[in-house]
């Protein structure tokens, strides 16, 4: 019986249910100074004089840091462009952009002092919508001098991405039916239940930083570079995040804290309020125009897509989300001619960053809604339309990239079966479906070490961030199976760059595959050493020995690994150390820098009831099916897929930032930014998975946990279309929006 494929209790589960799990905010260091940020209540301002005297006079205040206390020129950082200053210089560029920071002995003193910092400023015109940012005379978010060779430097277009293949003009002539529409996706925020928290402290001749960062090694490089320290003198502690969803991938205030720790010589700690977290991270909003040509029988002939993503004031990783999200916007389909133009548009708003789905949900909302509208125009069942056009396994549906790596039609058929697609829904209900595709990581590098100790227990060191997806557990499962240890005998060490080897990042649902394979290869390394050991002990040729999951086999004899190990290590004892690696190198000629390691694919089918008087949408039945290759831990897979579905219902039905005319966010915090509660669930939810062991990860697994979020909105809209005949192209589908659409349609 293997542990992989079963659902042992979550490693770290007991800590989570007893209150023992230490998140960054729970960690205490002696003599810590508490930090409070100083921000302006405007979208954009020219910063004048900053008077810190009253703030400094508050008892317990040790430092009020302004740009004057930082190196000149201002150090900047960012994963794609080094555009973000440690503190705003000359100008604040979004509502919440910090201009100063107070460090004090107590949170009370820091808060009081922050209120007393006097900042002279002049409000400047700001743009916070696509239309405003793209207008002829729009104020520029970034200084054109920062990108002198860019022809778009005098605009707010940061970058334009183009992908195309086939002959779109010829295809246009061939198409018998053309369906087009423009769709919008709102600004939404991750709203992890753990607000961001950070600490930094001098550490000998170096520095230690605590952050629930998804990419500890990346943060280490950023800090080392900004402080001009060798990497080995920067230690990043990365406790498990209390939810991240992409919003904790990249540095935010760690650099500021690092400078403050060195300036004060003491540990410093910043815990953001939920409101400050909403001002720190979000998803890119988007306006997407899709134009698709079909033959009468529903075969795809061409797809044209133009997408503008409204990113924030600093690039963060937002442009990459636009590149990657738009790249797969022809969908999981066979399409001979495709033309995609996608632009990242800067604005004076919260810097958008990675968020589950990474640029895909926005275009999938448009593309799948367009498919659904096409199905109605063509008078073809939306299910049949997908099946007719879905790429088959092994088909090179994107020229030059990884072929379709799953039997996607099987997932679609399974979803259809679960919801009873081929029988009519009960009266008064509409039914709809949609599919979602996302490409996995394009490059990657994960090292791990596995130590098999003399008694057969195991220590795995892996740099992945376990933010709830259960990475720790599946790594323990793999080591347990491969080395024959009970899972309770496996310890997984994560989140400390001084102790754990390099991992590029935790993103793109990569960790089961990349770190999983790395751990598998470390275990195989140990198995090879065991084989050599057994050969020596038994005086047998190595090639006559098989070391497999937990066992050493010589001819008919089967010996437990522990026996061979303890005899082989002998009187001195010791341990066996395995080193593992999984690497996917960059392909510089590829538009995304590399082909997809795997794809995530999901089909979601939904039944809805629409209250025509109020516009309320209720969901009596929700089905989601993901193609996962192999569920290493089925319970965790289900938890992730259902969680993704409910998160998707958030942006589908209720979530959006509300800005005032001056570009300030009106609905900061939990009272007016609504996410689904336990009372907002579908009446019935069925989730299932397709396991064909056809993924590149351990035992045939693929990455998962973003797929089930991708098609939520178009699936619900498809059901609403079925129930009411309405095509609503803007999210969220609030009761008021639906009511208006119903009213406008009835004239």
């Amino acid at each position, binding site marked *: 019986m293997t542990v992989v494929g079963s659902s042992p209790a979550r490693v770290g589960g007991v800590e989570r249910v007893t209150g023992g799990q230490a*998140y960054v*905010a729970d960690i205490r260091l002696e003599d810590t100074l508490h930090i409070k940020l100083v921000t302006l209540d405007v979208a954009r301002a020219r910063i004048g004089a900053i008077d810190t005297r009253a703030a400094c006079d508050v008892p317990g205040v040790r430092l009020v840091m302004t740009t004057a206390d930082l190196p000149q020129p201002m150090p900047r950082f960012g994963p794609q462009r080094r555009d973000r200053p440690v503190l705003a210089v000359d100008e604040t560029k979004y509502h919440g952009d910090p201009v100063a920071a107070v460090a004090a002995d107590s949170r009370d003193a820091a808060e009081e002092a922050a209120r007393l910092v006097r900042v002279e400023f002049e409000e400047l015109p700001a743009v916070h919508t696509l239309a405003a940012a793209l207008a002829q005379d729009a104020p520029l978010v970034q200084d054109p001098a920062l990108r002198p060779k860019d022809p778009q430097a005098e605009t707010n277009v940061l970058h334009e991405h183009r992908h195309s293949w086939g002959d779109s003009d010829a295809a246009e002539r061939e198409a018998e039916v053309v369906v087009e529409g423009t769709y919008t996706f709102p600004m939404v925020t*991750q709203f*992890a239940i*753990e*607000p961001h928290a950070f600490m930094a402290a001098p550490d000998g001749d170096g520095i230690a930083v605590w952050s629930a960062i998804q990419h500890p090694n990346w943060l280490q490089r950023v800090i080392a570079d900004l402080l001009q320290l060798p990497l080995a003198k920067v230690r990043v502690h990365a406790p498990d995040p209390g939810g991240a969803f992409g919003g904790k991938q990249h540095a935010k205030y760690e650099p500021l804290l690092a400078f403050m720790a060195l300036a004060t010589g003491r540990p410093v700690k910043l*815990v953001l309020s939920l409101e400050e977290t909403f001002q720190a991270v979000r998803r890119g909003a988007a306006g997407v125009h899709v134009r698709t040509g079909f033959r009468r029988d529903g075969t795809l002939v061409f797809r044209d897509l133009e997408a503008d993503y409204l990113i924030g004031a600093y690039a963060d990783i937002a442009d990459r989300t636009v590149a990657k999200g738009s790249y797969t916007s022809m969908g999981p389909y066979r399409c001979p001619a495709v033309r995609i133009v996608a632009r990242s548009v800067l604005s004076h708003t919260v810097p958008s960053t990675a968020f589950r789905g990474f640029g895909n949900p926005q275009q999938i909302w448009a593309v799948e809604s367009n498919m659904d509208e096409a199905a109605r125009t063509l008078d073809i069942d939306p299910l049949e339309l997908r099946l007719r056009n879905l790429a088959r396994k092994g088909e090179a549906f994107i020229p030059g990239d990884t072929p379709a790596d799953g039997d996607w039609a099987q997932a679609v058929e399974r979803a259809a079966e679960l919801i009873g697609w081929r029988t009519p829904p009960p009266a008064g209900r509409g039914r709809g479906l949609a599919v979602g595709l996302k490409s996995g990581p394009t490059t990657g590098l994960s090292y791990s070490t596995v130590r098999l100790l003399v008694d057969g227990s195991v220590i795995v060191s892996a740099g992945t961030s376990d933010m709830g997806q259960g990475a720790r557990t599946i790594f323990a499962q793999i080591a347990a199976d491969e080395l024959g240890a009970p899972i309770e005998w496996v310890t997984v060490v994560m989140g400390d760059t001084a102790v754990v080897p390099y991992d590029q990042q935790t993103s793109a649902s990569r960790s089961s595959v990349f770190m999983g394979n790395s751990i598998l290869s470390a275990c195989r390394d140990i198995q090879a050493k065991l084989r050599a050991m057994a050969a020596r002990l038994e005086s047998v040729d190595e090639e006559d020995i098989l070391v497999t999951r937990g066992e050493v086999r010589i001819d008919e004899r089967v010996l437990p690994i522990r026996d061979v190990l303890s005899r082989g290590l002998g009187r001195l004892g010791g341990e066996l150390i395995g080193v593992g690696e999984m690497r996917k190198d960059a392909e510089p000629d590829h538009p995304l820098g590399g082909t997809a390691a795997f794809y995530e694919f999901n089909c979601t089918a939904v039944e809805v009831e629409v209250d025509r008087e109020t516009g309320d949408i209720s969901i009596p039945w929700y089905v989601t099916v993901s193609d996962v290759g192999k569920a290493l831990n089925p319970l965790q897979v289900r*938890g992730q897929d259902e969680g993704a579905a409910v998160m998707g219902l958030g942006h589908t039905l209720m979530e959006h930032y509300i800005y005032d005319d001056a570009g300030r966010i009106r609905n900061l915090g939990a009272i007016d930014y609504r996410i689904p509660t336990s009372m907002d669930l579908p009446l019935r939810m069925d989730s299932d998975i397709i396991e064909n062991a056809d993924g590149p990860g351990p035992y045939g697994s693929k990455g998962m946990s973003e797929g089930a979020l991708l098609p939520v909105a178009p699936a619900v809209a498809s059901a609403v279309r079925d129930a009411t005949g309405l095509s609503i192209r803007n999210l969220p589908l609030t009761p008021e929006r639906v009511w208006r659409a119903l009213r406008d349609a009835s004239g």
Partner: protein
Amino acid sequence: MTGELRRIDMTVNGRARAIDVLPHHTLLEVLRDDLGLTGTKECCLVGECGACTVLVDDVSVDSCLMLGVEADGASITTVEGLAFGERLHPLQQAFLDTGAAQCGFCIPGQLVSAAALLAETPHPTRAEIEEGLAGNLCRCGGYEQIIEAVAAAAAAGDHPGRAASTGHAGVPAVGDRASTPDAELAPQ
């Protein structure tokens, strides 16, 4: 006078505590910062997310909306007080069994709310569980596994009921019975 410390006496997880607090500090801050009980979490601070849920005299409240001084004379139960020594509370075990805890940040609040729900309604319907936990936001898990855990714990029976703050059913609180030893008082 503004800023004067007030002495409060309360029972926390069955253990008598006497501490000096500042009036403007919430019960949440007192529990986390003064008593070192960091199991109860800080998130929205406006009584919407429930991450700060504790029991005050057996009743679930958002500790971010209660001042520490208001807890004078009260009996408080936090997540650290649910287990009995090494033995997990049935809800804690159920949460583990159904996979309810993913990132875990909302879980202390969910557990305390669920304990209060089951004490009041030992056999809740699905709708009652949904409503009972509606003040506890979760962003990872979609709530299904949490709801299943509460239903499973209800079906298994044996709930401390109104004695929640005094230990498991029938077991009186005598001295220190918290599963996680309360931290020593942190200096102000």
